[in-house]
């Protein structure tokens, strides 16, 4: 049983560029949440997708957007990258009605 997978594992971008990160949820899961984890900090909630719609959003600007596909996989898009966007981006999946979120390995984004 495959767990949560994310791609790419690492990414280097320059300020002002745009980036797309991808996530495939754990088998049987239909809900995907995205988190940003700065170095030495706990993960911060960006947003959650369920039934291809954003269900809840954290305190992140509109530069951060997402999408969920019919197969429950998800993308996180960040526009106009800033140096401060450098972080580990984590995807977590869960099943409707269950609170437990299972995390993927993350994508390490470096903005130069």
């Amino acid at each position, binding site marked *: 049983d495959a767990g*949560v997978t*994310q791609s790419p594992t690492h990414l280097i971008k320059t300020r002002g560029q745009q980036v797309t990160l991808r996530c495939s949820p754990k088998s049987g899961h239909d*809900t995907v*949440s995205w*988190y940003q984890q700065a170095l*030495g*900090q*706990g*993960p*911060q*909630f960006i947003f*959650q997708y369920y039934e291809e719609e954003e*269900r*809840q959003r*954290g305190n992140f600007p509109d530069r951060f957007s997402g999408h969920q596909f019919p197969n429950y996989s998800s993308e996180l898009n960040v526009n106009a990258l800033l140096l401060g966007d450098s972080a580990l981006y*984590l995807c*977590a999946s869960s099943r409707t009605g269950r*609170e*437990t*979120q*299972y*995390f*993927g*390995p*993350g994508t390490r984004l470096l903005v130069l």
Partner: protein
Amino acid sequence: GESVGLHLPTLSVQEGDNSIINCAYSNSASDYFIWYKQESGKGPQFIIDIRSNMDKRQGQRVTVLLNKTVKHLSLQIAATQPGDSAVYFCAEKFQGAQKLVFGQGTRLTINP
């Protein structure tokens, strides 16, 4: 505001001893709590969770205790092993919300 804090940022224990990692939460309306283990370069790994209608839950070598009176959560790891070395995060979920709110984390080091 939202905050899940930890009493100690670092904890060092002898191999074979029991470890106790503490966490204070601020929102009395939180109804779900979860502990994750995060090894260097990896995503958070689910350890154990507990709902607010319980005060204790046991897993394999781990026990989570919830004290709602003082808004305190703890993770007990029995007979710690070198593989237990990692950063441990507690997180809470507010009632009716979808997101997890994480604390800063505690780094657990196991001494041989």
